[in-house]
């Protein structure tokens, strides 16, 4: 039920100082509750019409705050609310042309049912570290898909390990 996280509304070019600097679209939380920004975007990828946009060209607007994707790990005390879509802003001078575009988005969020910490001595019993302890410190992109995610990404290296959503969206200026 969570794999349909791309919204059609909100897809548009971004204009700054009279210039089109890029495009943006909205995503909802593909989970049953809100997420810490650092947890929500441990893996993230955007591909539009087959073009992959690097992390340093992507930022996220959540509420009234904007986070560069490269800095989300620092946003571990910023909360992305359950009901509020986030805006994904992608830098692309000139933006996208009016018409139909294929937008693909992949996301990996860390769940709370495990920990990256190594159990200290005295805690070496089953489930002390969680149901599904994640692999320690590993970002999912380019690695093996974490349990429960990435099945839909198949062998696509860009989306490996990510929950993906793909839509043909109409860009209107």
């Amino acid at each position, binding site marked *: 039920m969570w794999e349909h996280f791309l919204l059609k509304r909100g897809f548009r070019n971004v204009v700054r100082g009279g210039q089109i600097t890029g495009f943006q679209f909205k995503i909802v939380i593909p989970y049953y509750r809100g997420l810490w920004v650092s947890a929500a975007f441990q893996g993230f990828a955007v591909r539009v019409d087959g073009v992959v946009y690097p992390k340093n060209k992507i930022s996220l607007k959540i509420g009234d705050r904007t986070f560069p994707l490269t800095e989300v790990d620092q946003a*571990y005390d910023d909360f992305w609310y359950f009901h509020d879509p986030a805006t994904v802003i992608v830098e692309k001078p000139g933006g996208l042309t009016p018409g139909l575009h294929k937008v693909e988005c992949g996301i990996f969020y860390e769940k709370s049912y495990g920990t990256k910490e190594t159990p200290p001595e005295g805690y070496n019993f*089953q489930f002390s570290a969680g149901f599904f302890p994640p692999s320690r410190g590993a970002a999912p992109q380019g690695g093996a898909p974490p349990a429960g995610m990435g099945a839909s990404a198949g062998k696509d290296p860009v989306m490996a390990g990510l929950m993906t959503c793909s839509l043909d969206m109409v860009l209107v200026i």
Partner: protein
Amino acid sequence: MNRRECISILAGATATTVLATNGAMGNNSATAAGPSASAKTVLDHKVKRGVSIYSYQRAMMEKGMTLRDCLEEMSDIGAYGVEFMTQAMSGEYPNVSDKWVDEWWKMMDKFGTIPDCLTGFVDSCRRLKPMTIEENVAFLERDLKIAKKLGLTKVRLGPPAWVIEHAIPVAEKYGIWIGWEIHAPMPLKSELIDWVVKQAEKHPHAIGFVPDMGIFQKYPRPFTRELQIRAGTLTRDTALYIEDAYRKGADKAEVASKVQGMKPKPGDVSYVEAVYRAGAACQNPKDLIPLIPYCKHVHGKCHEMTKGDEFNDTEMLYGEVIPVLMENGFDGFIATEFEGQRVGGVEDVDEIEEVRRHQLMLKRILGS
């Protein structure tokens, strides 16, 4: 003393029992159409009905159902115990304003609902680098403070164990009880259980268990069968025969051999294994008895209720477990935790109806 002060101060079993009864009686218009609580039976045993708002997640996300709507619904069905997830609230978490807290208490008064348990998370893996115990405990402390303001005297938590152990003194400081969730596939006899019992013996008011009724899942979910039939990989008559044989305790090998004679599809053959595996992690309800003194809250897990007017869970052994809770002095709420909306997408699962069906089952067994 107003109701908010009464709940906040007395927060123990006595207050919630009395308030559950008063809440029902003081709210006749809300309960007229639904089940009404009976003071006598509430006092006979101490098991009360509640709902985790987790149950309404899809209605909240996709259909605009608000927290207020959830509380009104719970009041309408006489499920007064509120399990609340701060991380599903809108707008203010983790910095909750006094105005929001006042609104919360106004809603509790209006609907006769009782703050009971916070669905809490350690969230220790929210960064790419591991977080320290101190960072994790500080994070939990903030949630415990919110719980305190909202009158939620219990918090459902889970791993990591070493963080929980360090959070016990903090829980004691705020008068909050931490319930370690025993969730499938955890067995009731294990090193983890022994570890929590050891902590609970030392700090009975600060830690214990929240058993999730999913540990008593014995039967397969009908929806899974229906998906396979729809996909053409499973034959209905064969599937129903296998399930019936399993319920009657028939030998698996005999059933498998009989299925071979039914001109089976590959899916029919593998369904024997699936059905017989459905209860693989099912615990013996009697094994819960020694842990009941450490339990103050129960998760009433539910994926799918039966469709007719018999009001039974399709998978879990509620008919056996609830009497065990009633007879062995469990004192607290069973919060319905409907989770059937998380599978599929083929059918529009109606959370309101499924929760109501689950509550009708609880009411039948509890008598109130």
